[in-house]
């Protein structure tokens, strides 16, 4: 069965969702890295 073609609004929503997922993933990596550095006492 063929998937229903996406209209412009769906494409824009999909792009926003992907961007949000990338930002959230980047924040997880950033906060994890900060925690490791701070807990390791290597701030300076």
């Amino acid at each position, binding site marked *: 069965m063929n998937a229903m073609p996406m209209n412009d609004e769906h494409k824009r929503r999909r792009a*926003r969702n992907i*961007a949000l997922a990338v930002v959230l993933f980047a924040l997880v990596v*950033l906060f994890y890295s*900060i925690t490791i*550095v701070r807990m390791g006492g290597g701030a*300076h």
Partner: protein
Amino acid sequence: MSDASFIGQVNEAGNAGLDAAYDKTGEARPADYFALLKPRVMSLVVFTGLVGMVLAPGTLHPVLAITALLCIAIGAGASGAINMWYDADIDAVMTRTQGRPIPQGRISRDEALGFGCVLSVGSVLVMGLAVNWVAAAILALTIGFYVFIYTMWLKRRTPQNIVIGGAAGAFPPMIGWAAVTGDLSLLPMLLFAIIFMWTPPHFWALALYRSDDYARAGVPMLPVVAGDRETRRQILLYSLLLVPITLSPWILGLAGPLYGSATAVLGAIFLGLAVRIWRGTGDRAAKHMFAYSILYLFLLFALLLAERGLGWGA
């Protein structure tokens, strides 16, 4: 017509356009949210913040240095988004800003405000928790200064708007410095003074050839209120004050001979352009000054960076 009623009519026209544009909200792409952060302004802010960080004595773990720069970038961008929320009515009537996401109707004003507030609070909190609270406090001051002092208080009231408001753009080297040291000293304050004194000739050069746009939007930029002649005189006066300040890090032994000699040449060119503006009447010299002023500030900070990288700094 009084200024107040003129600005009132401008705002009504801008708001009517915005109401019609709201029908298109929901069409935003990720690039529209990025545009709310004023990426071109952000790039200069990040660069000057980086220079403050590199010049500061001491070291900062690379992860925390990247975090600090990210917080400076996001904080500056967030204040840009709140500025676009507040100024959406005048953005809609100015040629230079009509293409922004809110006047185009791709993002609503409320959405821009929420976006800006969340990013502002988030950037300050992360800076405080991950780096230090002195840098976080200066970042919060920067955002607050740009939003409350410049955008809401000064911009529509006085031709001194960009003179005082320029402080907001001058804080990033201090934030970068404080991120490393946890305090401030003379050099970051001189870097602040350089950007602060650079801002009026930079923006007034733009305002000289965009004065119709500012007049239509009811923004009392100096050429609109005091005329071209006075603006040209003020550009020269501020340039005469700026050049000695740019040389002060070298004179005080805080920068090396590369910075001192190159800054003298770059400053002479800056003064030459200011004199051309003062003597002329057309837009050509003002356009040259606006373009050169961006290169000038970039080169001054790049020289400090290069000296530190080469180990030639004082």
